[in-house]
């Protein structure tokens, strides 16, 4: 319990410092932030905006107003658009595509990585292992945007199998939804797959050398059973940890993929708010991504601490 509390406090501290620095950064923009938000408004309007956003209140007052807004569900507005769009309404629209993208990428990566990692660990040193290792090594290095563009060139432009860009809701047009998601998900999950496979392989190789595995094997339990029950289960903790940790990073990584494939997700909105200098929206969106990232980190850390005796011992 104390541990949970400690971690929670640490998490909050990190989030508060990070968001404060973020809001400080926004205030560093040269010139009048209200003029940056609405370059072509008369002063009266800018005054209204300064009041509304707390920009009139100095660094701490501004941060406090933003933070209390966040806590009460007021995420700010896009002012370039006359304040018609609230960040909350944009989030409502842009979160689902990003979440689908991240979820599919994780699923695809895990589904491929698990059998691949187990097999290559089991056959460590074999030709299969060596080939997968070097292929994975190469693919983990290929940037998502380069992969995305090249996939788009081959499958969308030249072969015309899928549309090069766009997004459809899975409820309205499920088939089109999956078709449009294929390329972005591949672009995002190739790197993930490689890193999961390599992680799992290393871990499984270590586990295979543990005494209890040797013993289980010597008891005549079938290889497959040993592999799944005695080897994969403990190793899966590492894998899931890494998968959870990747959630936050993936939100960041989707920015580029969403831009290339024109998916109206959170990454796309971040890029847009930066381009349009909508600092309030930018601050809110980036803060949310950072929060998600820290949250997953902490949660995973806690879970592994509580469940995996090995970690507990090591930490002790």
């Amino acid at each position: 319990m104390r541990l949970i509390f400690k971690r929670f406090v640490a998490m909050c501290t990190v989030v508060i410092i990070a968001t404060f620095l973020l809001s400080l950064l926004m205030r560093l923009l040269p010139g009048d932030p209200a003029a940056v938000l609405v370059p072509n408004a008369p002063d009266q309007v800018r005054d209204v905006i300064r009041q509304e956003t707390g920009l009139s209140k100095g660094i701490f007052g501004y941060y406090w107003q933003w933070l209390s807004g966040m806590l009460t569900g007021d995420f700010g507005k896009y002012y370039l658009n006359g304040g018609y769009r609230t960040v909350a309404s944009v989030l409502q629209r842009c979160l689902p595509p990003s979440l689908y993208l991240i979820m599919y990428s994780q699923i695809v990566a895990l589904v491929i990585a698990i059998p691949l990692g187990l097999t290559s660990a089991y056959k460590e040193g074999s030709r299969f292992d060596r080939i997968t290792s070097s292929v994975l090594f190469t693919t983990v290095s290929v940037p998502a945007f380069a992969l995305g563009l090249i996939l788009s060139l081959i499958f969308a432009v030249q072969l015309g199998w899928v549309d090069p860009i766009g997004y459809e809701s899975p409820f309205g047009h499920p088939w089109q939804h999956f078709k449009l998601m294929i390329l972005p998900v591949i672009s995002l999950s190739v790197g993930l797959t490689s890193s999961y496979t390599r992680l799992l392989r290393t871990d499984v190789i270590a586990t295979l050398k543990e005494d209890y595995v040797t013993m289980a094997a010597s008891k005549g339990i079938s290889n497959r059973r040993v592999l799944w029950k005695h080897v994969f289960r403990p190793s899966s903790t590492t894998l899931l940890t890494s998968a959870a940790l990747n959630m936050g990073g993936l939100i960041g990584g989707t920015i580029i993929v969403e831009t290339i494939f024109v998916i109206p997700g959170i990454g796309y909105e971040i890029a847009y708010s930066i381009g349009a200098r909508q600092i309030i929206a930018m601050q809110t969106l980036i803060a949310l991504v950072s929060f998600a990232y820290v949250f997953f980190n902490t949660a995973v850390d806690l879970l592994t601490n509580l469940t995996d005796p090995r970690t507990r011992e090591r930490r002790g």
Partner: protein
Amino acid sequence: MPNAMNFHPVSGVTTSMADMVAFVTSIQVCIFGGNSMTQSQITRSRVMRRIGVAVAATIAITTMASTGSQAASKPNASKYGGEVKVGIFDTFPGFCVGNNPANSSLMATRTVYETLFEKTRGNDYVGLLAKSAAASADLKTWTVTLRPGIKFHNGEALDAAAMVTNWKNTSGTNYVATYLTKGAAAAGAAYAHTLGTAVPFQSNILLAAVSPTDPLAVIYTLDRPQNDFEGTLYASGRGFVRAPAQLVDKTTCSGNPIGTGPFKIVSYTTDEMIVAKNADYWRTDPKTGDKLPYLDKITFTNVKEGSQRAAAVRKGTVDAAMFSGASEGTFIQDLRKRKSVVTEYKSPAEYYPSTWLNQGKPGSPFKNIHARNAVLACVDKVTWVKARTKGEGVVSTSLVGPNSVMYTKNGFQTYDPVFAKAEVELYKQETGATSLTFTGPSDVSSTSISNAKFFQTMMAACGITYNFVIEEGAVIIGKAFNPSPTATSYYNAYDAISILLFEGTDVTFNLPFVLTNAFAPEIKNASGTVVSAASKNLTATFFRASIGSILGLNHHSDTNVDLAFYAGEAAQSAALAKAKFQEGTAVLQKNAIMGATFYFSYELFAGNKLGGIGTLSIEKGKTQRLVTNWGIDWTGVYKK
């Protein structure tokens, strides 16, 4: 630009206030060289009606041969409705008077709204919601009579009272009233919903009143004589007539478009607008008597990248897609070859991006004529057209194209690097400057940045230093047309900017941008005598003070320009008007107040399954222009 430049409407311009500058709103900025422009959503009005018909008649149909053949094929049972998808290159900023959709999103918005007048292929005006218009002898009072029996989507009737509500909201009258009674802050808060695209043009109107005898007659009283007022009301397709119910509720005005058009809104986001058939639409097909429109549903989707839009229309993912000849030549030329799949519809080359040299900004070199001469003479127009428009543009021989009533080669600066270098030296001698250096904007798109880089290289060849800042399109518009009353305000923030503002065959839209003060209360001639006085109406005075000086991006002080153009608008004969307009253009060109590099067309490519494009006439012999900067009219379109 579409691609690139794409003005995020959203972004910007929609800003609330932004719209003071209303029309500004959506201008297509083409960043240097004009290649990529943003769309103008401006209110353009140009009309040369009474006057310029003769000139105009020759122009019109550079469009497609295919149109003719389609017009010939009688609509028959084989045409039906169904759903259509259209790829555009602009976003949707909303639908209140303060939201200005850029070109291709204007096409979508115009399926919901209609204007009082439409421009025909002969470049004259024909009443759409209006039945007729008549001017007084002094051209200062215009009476517009509405067609009877037209209803808005919510059932409200279109009558003179509705038009007065529209006028009050679009002209800024409400804003001024709030300003005077409740103070600046309240006015500021109300600003977004009050000002419209038509402001700069309609603030020329002093009074609009309902005739006591005829509920369908609206009387407009103007500040100064204008022989082409229908153009002001048409506002380049932006003079929407909105239902009073939409305008009255300021909180929902932007998201709840209610018009008289053939389609009703279903939903919209920044990048998509869906409309469905208005079953009670007032028009019928004059040839067959069929009820209009044919299509059941249209989805307009913003596809920024030209290549992706081209791929989509080629593959049939969308049924039609719009392109800009300024920057999407590659895609246009590729699609043009695919006649078995798509049909090309092309506007006349009547879009004229200009290079605006700012004389009003402190620190700008362009107060000096040698600096202006040097920059304009250094632009290699032929190379620009080849390299940047892929040959889709036409090399400029005047600030506007030959179809415009303003066209004259007189004094137009041609490419002459030797002269340019000499002028650089003269500039240095006269001012003591060590170099000729100036700054302009580029938007964030790669097309626009490439243009800026190309322009930079070109300038460097003449010994001129050009720096560019990269900013979001909407930000650029905000800074160029800066209405913010702060210390640095009221002037274009850039030393030079390339933007598409000039277009078409007449001058109504172009005018406010070239005058010394777009709404000068009075104009004095060289000897100081007032040659043109205006009334002291409060709204007009207010807007003169606040936006009048913003429109003229050159901020020059040559009143000969004003005199010539106002004389043209007040002229009672087409010939005189034309002579005066050309005189104005010549002054701009001779004094190197501004320059131009090329002009271009907009294009629509439609899958061959779409019929009825450009065939529906409003009245006998009066067919709307086929493709404009805002695309085509979807009312008579059907699937074959």
